[in-house]
Structure formats: C-alpha cells, structure tokens
C-alpha cells in the first residue's frame, strides 16, 4: 500500500520521544500510547479484507468518517495485537447503526461509555477474559480493544472532553469497557447464537453503558432472591428509566438460577416485572413524566407492565442477561443504559465475516 505522505509524521527514532510527541498532538486518552508506526499499522490492516480507505462508520452530525485505516492506526496506539482488529471493526459497524446513536451517547452530559461484549469462539481465540476480574485490568485484549474504541471516538470523531464530549462526570469505562461473555459453564445459549448468527460465528454487542453497579448477594439461594436483588439495583431511584439494561450474572448466582431450571427468557421477564417504582415514588423524587408512563402503558404495553408503576425498559427483551466473572463470589452487576428511553438501543455485528452485506 502506498504511504499517504500527508498523513505521515516523521519523528526521531526514539520511542519515548515518540510517545511524548503523541501527547503533544492531543492523540491520547491521558495514558501513554504506542506510537503508530507505519509497520504496525500495516500489520493491523492485514486482518481486514477491505481496502484501507473503506468507511466503517460516519458521524451523523459532522460527517467525519472512520476508515479501516484510521481504525488500524488507533488500534495500534491502544496497544492492540493485529488479531484483535476484527472486533474493533465489527464494534464500530454496530455503533454506526442509527439506533445506537453514538454521537448522542458520546456527546451527552450522561457520560456513557460503549460497552463491548464479545460472544463466541473468537473471544477465546484472541485470549479475551470472561472470567475472574472481568471488568478489571490484566487482560491485553479486553483492555486494548476497549481503549481503541475510546481513541477512535476521540481522534477520528473528535469527541473531545469538554468540547464535543460534555459528560458531567463520565465513568471509568470511558478508558476501556470491553468484556467477553463466559462460555465455560454457561447454561444458556451464548449471545451470538441468540442473535441468530450461524454456528462458529462470533459477535460483538455494543451498549451505551451509563456506569457500573455491583449487585452483592451472598445469602440468597433461590432465583427470586438473586434476581430480586438485581431488580432492586435496576429500579433504584437514581437509575430507573425506560432505558435498556445489561446484567452480567456471576457464575455463583447463575448456578442458583440455572439449577432451578430458569431460562434466560424467564429471568428477563422476572427482572422486567420486578424492576419498577410506583408512580407515587417517581412523583416523590421528581422523576415522574406522563409521557414516559403513557409510552410504557399505551396500546402496545407489555402484559407484565403493571398499572401504577414505571418499569425499567419497555419489554423484557430490553434486558440483556448473560454470565461472566470468576467462580467465587456473589457479585453480579447491572449496567444501566445511558439513554433514558430509546435514544440509544444496543446493537450487534458478527466478527470477521460479512453476513447479508450490501
């Protein structure tokens, strides 16, 4: 591939000086980056079948475009290995779907971060972590794929903190927010299968996550007790909206639910039915709005939507549930959507393959 000389920065052959140069250009998330040397970018590009100038995503307001090449440059800077690149490409293809609204979720005062959930064999193939310390540090693939997502939002789409990223407080996931779905011991179909992809095809799901809430329950021994505590977190006064939810069940919690024979659908329905606040409570805290109640209780209301209550989400399908984390500990988590309604809807794409491409 010929070099685009207008996009090349010649710097002294000193890695530390090059890292400082990247800082000076405003290309980092505050942490040092791997200088995007030409050779490493080309190695990254070898993992994508389309030409470097192919467009993956377009910012709806500024029309700034993410090309395969720009994605590869930022992936190098984040510290990715080339085999991680298909996940990043698929993630931005998913984020480019209008329903995800990556402009709004990134620019908003809400301070969300795109959560990436990688499902299927590709996660294992590239050494992703679905196990102990799931959301914590220590795994290169998880950490750098999530970081590349942020660097692309910053460098390509110019979502700059304080300028076009107006997060009031942000959240730590804005550095990196990427996990793998745990397949080992998972009693339910993996997300990639539920999403309808053929056997052997992995997927990435993107979700505009508004934070992270640990759900601790070491005393519950029934699905109702475990999921009841999850529902309580989902419906806390600070979080309850009509937005979607992600729930990652710890293996210890999942075992209790699965041993009782509960399916994913039954768990979703339980959570939807129980993650609710009364109109009186919503009014008391100043969050009640007729328009939101009417949206949930109108002609197309889900049968589990109870009169006089605001539930989290519009239907049980608004709650993504799967398993992740280490074997020990009664610690699941709930991640609220940034969107208070339908402003951002989670999306997914297959990794490394083209299905029904135009």
């Amino acid at each position, binding site marked *: 591939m010929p070099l685009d000389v207008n996009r090349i920065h010649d710097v002294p052959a000193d890695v530390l000086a090059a890292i400082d140069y990247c800082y000076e250009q405003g290309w980092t998330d505050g942490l040092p980056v791997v200088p995007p040397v030409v050779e490493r970018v080309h190695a990254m590009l070898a993992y994508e079948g389309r030409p470097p100038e192919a467009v993956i995503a377009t910012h709806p307001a500024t*029309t700034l475009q*993410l090309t395969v090449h*720009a994605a590869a440059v930022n992936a190098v800077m984040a510290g990715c290995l080339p085999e991680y690149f298909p996940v990043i490409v698929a993630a931005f293809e998913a984020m480019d779907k209008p329903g995800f609204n990556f402009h709004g979720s990134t620019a908003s005062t809400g301070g969300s971060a795109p959560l990436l959930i990688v499902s299927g064999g590709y996660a294992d193939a590239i050494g992703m972590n679905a196990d102990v310390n799931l959301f914590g540090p220590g795994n290169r693939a998880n950490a750098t794929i999530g970081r590349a997502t942020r660097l692309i939002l910053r460098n390509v789409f110019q979502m700059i903190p304080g300028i076009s990223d107006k997060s009031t407080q942000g959240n730590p996931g804005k550095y990196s927010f990427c996990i793998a779905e745990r397949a080992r011991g998972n009693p339910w179909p993996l997300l990639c299968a539920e999403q309808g992809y053929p056997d052997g095809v992995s997927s990435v799901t993107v979700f505009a996550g508004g934070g992270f809430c640990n759900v601790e329950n070491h005393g519950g021994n029934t699905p109702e007790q475990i999921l009841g505590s999850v529902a309580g977190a989902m419906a806390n006064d600070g979080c309850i909206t009509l937005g979607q939810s992600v729930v990652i069940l710890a293996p210890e919690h999942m075992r209790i639910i699965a041993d009782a024979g509960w399916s994913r659908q039954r768990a979703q329905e339980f959570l939807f039915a129980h993650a609710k606040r009364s109109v009186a409570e919503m009014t008391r805290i100043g969050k009640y709005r007729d328009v939101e109640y009417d949206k949930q209780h109108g002609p197309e209301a889900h049968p589990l939507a109870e009169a006089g209550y605001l539930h989290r989400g519009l239907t049980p399908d608004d709650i993504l549930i799967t398993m992740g984390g280490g074997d020990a500990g009664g610690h699941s988590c709930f991640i609220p959507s940034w969107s208070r309604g339908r402003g951002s809807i989670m999306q997914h794409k297959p990794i490394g393959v083209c299905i029904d491409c135009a």
Partner: protein
Amino acid sequence: MQLYDPTSSGAERALSRAAALASLEGKTIGILENGKLNAVEMLHEVADLFVQRHGCVIRTVYSKSNASAPAPSDTLAKAAAEVDFLITGLGD
C-alpha cells in the same frame, strides 16, 4: 520513525450559514423542541418574547423523536420551507 496520523482524513461537509434576516418584524417563528422535560415550555417562553417585541407569529412546533440525535433532514427541510427562523435549544 514514521507515524501515521490517527485523526480522520474523511471528507467533511461544506457548512455555510444562512443569510441574516434584515428585520425580525412580523416574521414567522418555528420551534424545534427536543422532547425533553420542559423543552416546549422554555422555547415558547423565548418565542413569546419575539411575538411581544417584534410582532412575530409562532407558526408551528417541530418535535424531535430523539433528543440526542440530529434532527431528521426532512424535518429541517419542512421547517425551512414554512418559517423565517427557527428557535431551538436543550430542555431538561
């Protein structure tokens, strides 16, 4: 050492401002509200000032279905055809 630039090299949209109105007197105002709490009320308060001070007429309210996404192009095209100027802003 040669580094690739990580910023976008994609084509950017050509932007231009509409010509300023020579006068506000008697002009037709459109309101583009974003659906957030109090948006309509706040924007009407602003529009009422133009009615009182310049004899403007409030023609219609255009509603965005998604507060955080750009207004649909057909909404903007309709507004451009129907009003002389548009008032918009965040309400929350």
